[in-house]
């Protein structure tokens, strides 16, 4: 009994603590692991809401900006050809 029950109880306690710790840490954030599917709500960070062409600062539908935003500038942004002079870089991991 001692050789089975006590080790089994210790294992159960440690497993329970580990499960509780992993659930509680990081504010419930899901962990991203490269190469594995990662479901989350897309987010767009701006320093100030007025930095978006649609000054209402409401949620956007990614990939469908022309219908999601109503301001004239926004509609133009979806239609116009890419502005020359933009730069940047692309990369993969």
């Amino acid at each position, binding site marked *: 009994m001692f050789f089975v029950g006590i080790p089994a109880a210790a294992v159960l306690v440690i497993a329970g603590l580990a499960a509780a710790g992993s659930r509680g840490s990081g504010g419930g954030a899901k962990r991203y692991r490269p190469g594995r599917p990662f479901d989350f709500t897309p987010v767009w960070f701006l320093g100030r809401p007025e930095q978006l062409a649609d000054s209402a600062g409401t949620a956007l539908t990614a990939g469908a900006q022309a219908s999601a935003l109503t301001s004239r500038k926004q509609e133009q942004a979806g239609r116009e050809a890419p502005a020359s002079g933009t730069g940047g870089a*692309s990369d993969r991991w």
Partner: protein
Amino acid sequence: MEPEAQVTVGEARPETGTGTPPDVLDGPFSTRQLLRIDEALRLADQGTGLVFSVYVGGLDEPVREHAERLHRQLAEPDRSVLIAVSPNQRQLEIVTGKYARKRIPDTYVKLAALSMVASFGGGDLAGGVIQGLDQLASHAGKG
């Protein structure tokens, strides 16, 4: 079709009074990471006079064009720098506007992208974003 992107505005969104957490908490970051990204964005904006923004979510093909469309949605595209990260596609796009490009040449943007993808490859999305913002703002200098 991608799910709705939640636009965060640095400060906390207005409370709806329902007691429900803001939608941004359904995103890929914890509260602590959100605060760190917010701080990095604020410092980058204030330090450079440019407008930095970070999009984390799926990008439609061709991803570069989608990132440029997002960039054009910003109020001042010429002065703006958009960092677009698609974790599932493992793709990073950084778009600089006409004026921002003069402050941060593409060579330096590429260097920042390299260090960012190194963090992303290790599973650290928030760390990569913050590191990228810091590097881009450092290269841009004071506005």
